[in-house]
């Protein structure tokens, strides 16, 4: 592992070590670029991960103070926890379930295909599926995605068997154990899935891809990576010419450090990334960095989500095996006849007893609630995830009334469901219930959205600099050597779990950054 000087202004500084930042850092190192990777969290390992929902949450989750507003139910149930994402080396790739789906062709053209949806700020992406296909393929190979690159699918667990039986009875055509970044057989020096469950708690066998034990050690091997855990970035600075020039962070000892930089790539997830750009406001950029469009923090998307849990007469034991064990993709297309634009995926999901109690119906009490816990071993569960509408008013802003442990304004996350989101959620709930009823459910329950794990769109890509924050390379329109390298870039959300696309964009961005560096154009 390399150690670069704080005043070395030739390095690329990457902020955040998750799917975007961790991948980008490794890709750059492989191309011979020197990278300082700043990560706010500590470095854990497969050995230190904990098979315990609450203790693991304490170990991995981003728990810095945040506030919420708006009519979304998360603001009521979890007012201080808008998002369930991670502060640890590897970021949310420690916590993700592993579902790795490509966005659909039409989802890159949402404004054109869906039309002018009132109350939404839809835009076409400045790139197409065709542009991304070669990079998707590289990403799938890197992640070892099942059902791609000759990697077999995973074996289905009990939760999947219930989903499959119901799906076939209601006439769905496409139901299988999915495209998962979980080794179904040993691959890339990592073992095969042991069907432990606890995918959300950090995979203790390392079968699930995480930058923590793939990209980051690979980058360290090149001698080009200087990873600095427990380094929380406070501000990005710029020079008189308006180019970013340094990053100020609080280190593990509580001291402020200033790392000079030739290029800065921000990958702090869709809440911290716009927050950092806003916190970095200066006399030259009074509204924050890369914000001449006023779009930084706007168009926050979290996917339409919800879950259906069902009780059966016979045992299921849904907690056994992969958390996201299978998928129905029949509802993923765009079919406005259903009463909404865009589509949704249906994916199995299981919670342990502690988290089922916390998330099944937050705030509920009494026998209607305890009935489900009494039947814990006979429950199956699925998560519903679909495209939500970007809205300029769904937004991450600085809340100056509340300060975090660094004395900085905390991010406020404002969200109101668009009527399209509500219509899609109701359709998805009904579809999920139908699947379980067909499989013999005696009772079903519509679980409201969990705190957001898919946070997207707050620094979106746009062809026209007026409409967004960055171009099709994630390079900000305003500042040529400042990049956005995470899900914040998404112009629209699509229906699919976003990690594969984040990794794909990072691989593609790395090539662009390296090329611009060698051309000396940044």
């Amino acid at each position, binding site marked *: 592992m390399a150690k670069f000087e704080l005043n070395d202004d030739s390095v690329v500084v990457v902020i955040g070590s998750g799917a975007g930042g961790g991948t980008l850092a490794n890709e750059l190192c492989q191309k011979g670029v020197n990278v300082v990777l700043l990560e706010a969290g500590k470095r854990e390992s497969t050995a230190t991960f904990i*098979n*315990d*929902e*609450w*203790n693991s*949450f*304490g170990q991995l*989750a981003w728990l810095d103070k945040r506030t919420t507003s708006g009519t979304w139910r998360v603001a009521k149930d979890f007012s*201080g*926890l808008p998002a369930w994402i991670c502060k640890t080396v590897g970021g949310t790739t420690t916590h993700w379930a592993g579902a790795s789906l490509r966005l659909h062709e039409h989802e890159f053209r949402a404004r054109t295909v869906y039309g002018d949806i009132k109350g939404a700020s839809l835009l076409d992406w400045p790139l197409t599926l065709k542009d991304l296909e070669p990079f998707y393929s590289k990403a799938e190979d890197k992640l070892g995605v099942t059902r791609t690159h000759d990697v*077999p*699918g*995973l*074996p*289905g*667990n*009990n939760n*999947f*068997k*219930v989903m*499959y*039986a119901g799906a076939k009875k209601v006439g769905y055509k496409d*139901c*299988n*154990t999915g495209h998962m970044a979980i080794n*179904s*057989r040993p691959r890339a020096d990592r073992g*095969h*899935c*042991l*069907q*432990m*469950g*606890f995918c959300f708690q950090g995979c203790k*066998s390392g079968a699930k891809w995480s930058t923590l034990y793939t990209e980051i050690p690979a980058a360290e091997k090149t001698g080009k990576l200087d990873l600095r855990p427990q380094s929380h970035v406070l501000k990005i600075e710029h020079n008189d010419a308006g180019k970013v020039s340094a990053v100020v962070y609080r280190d593990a000892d509580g001291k402020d450090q200033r790392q000079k930089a030739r290029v800065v790539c921000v990958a702090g997830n869709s809440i911290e990334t716009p927050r950092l750009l806003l916190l970095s406001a200066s006399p030259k950029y009074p509204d924050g960095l890369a914000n001449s469009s006023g779009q930084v923090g706007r168009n926050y998307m979290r996917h339409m989500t919800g879950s259906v849990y069902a009780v059966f007469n*016979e*045992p*299921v*034991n849904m*907690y*056994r*095996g992969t958390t996201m064990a299978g998928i129905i993709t029949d509802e993923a297309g765009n079919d406005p006849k259903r009463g909404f634009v865009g589509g949704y995926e249906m994916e199995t999901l299981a919670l*342990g*007893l*502690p988290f*089922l*109690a*916390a998330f099944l119906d937050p*705030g509920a*009490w*009494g*026998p209607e*609630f*305890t009935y489900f*816990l*009494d039947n*814990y*071993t006979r429950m199956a569960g699925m998560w519903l995830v679909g495209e939500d509408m970007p809205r300029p008013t769904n937004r991450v802003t600085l809340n100056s009334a509340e300060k975090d442990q660094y004395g900085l304004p905390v991010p406020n996350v404002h969200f109101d469901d668009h009527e399209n989101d509500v219509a899609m959620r109701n359709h998805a709930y009904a579809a999920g219930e139908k699947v379980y009823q067909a*499989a*013999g459910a005696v009772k079903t329950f519509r679980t409201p959205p969990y705190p957001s794990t898919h946070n997207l769109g707050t620094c979106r890509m746009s062809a026209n600099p007026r409409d967004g924050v960055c171009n099709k390379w994630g390079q900000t329109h305003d500042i040529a050597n400042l990049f956005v390298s995470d899900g914040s870039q998404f112009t629209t959300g699509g229906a699919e779990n976003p990690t594969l696309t984040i990794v794909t964009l990072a691989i593609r961005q790395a090539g662009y950054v390296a090329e611009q560096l060698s051309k000396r154009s940044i």
Partner: protein
Amino acid sequence: MDIHRLTLSDDHEHGPEQPRPQIALTRREFLKGAGILTGTLAASSILSALAPSRAWALELKTLASAQGDALVQMGKVLYPHKGLPDAVYALLAKDLDGAAGKDPNSAQMLGEGIAALDKAAGGSFVTASDAKKLEAVKSLEGTPFFKTVRGQCITSLYNNEMAFAHFGYPGPSWDKGGYFTRGFGDLKWLPDPPGSASPAPYKA
């Protein structure tokens, strides 16, 4: 399994339900404190097979026994589970007692809330009928006391080994090698999906 091993640590601070500042505060003297809750596990309980003795006791440091009893009963109204032993509900009293010990404001709120329960039940909440108990708890819905107790129930009642055993959740699986050879796909009451949808497990 000893009851003290079964009890949870107070390390629930990270849950979204109960963000609590870890500030040491001096306890005021208005509470009598130092209560003790006792009980006996039913012989039929799955837990009695795990425990060396069916009798259990739990010491309270700040709340009085009667207050602990009231919280146990309130937990049973909020989250009723047939056959779930009082030893589990006693963990609710233990955790709230821990919170009261750290913060006099919390102790005062609990004391006042319990007094309000008694009043709403017409004297004694603990000895009131089930219907009266439910009515008393409902009458306090929306108060900080109600929110605190209800929120604490989620971690106190469902995040402990006794609850895991009762509800049939085995907890950690890593130490047992996961479920790869222990029934991750052992469901037999529905047809098996075809290999195209659900391929065979890896064989070395």
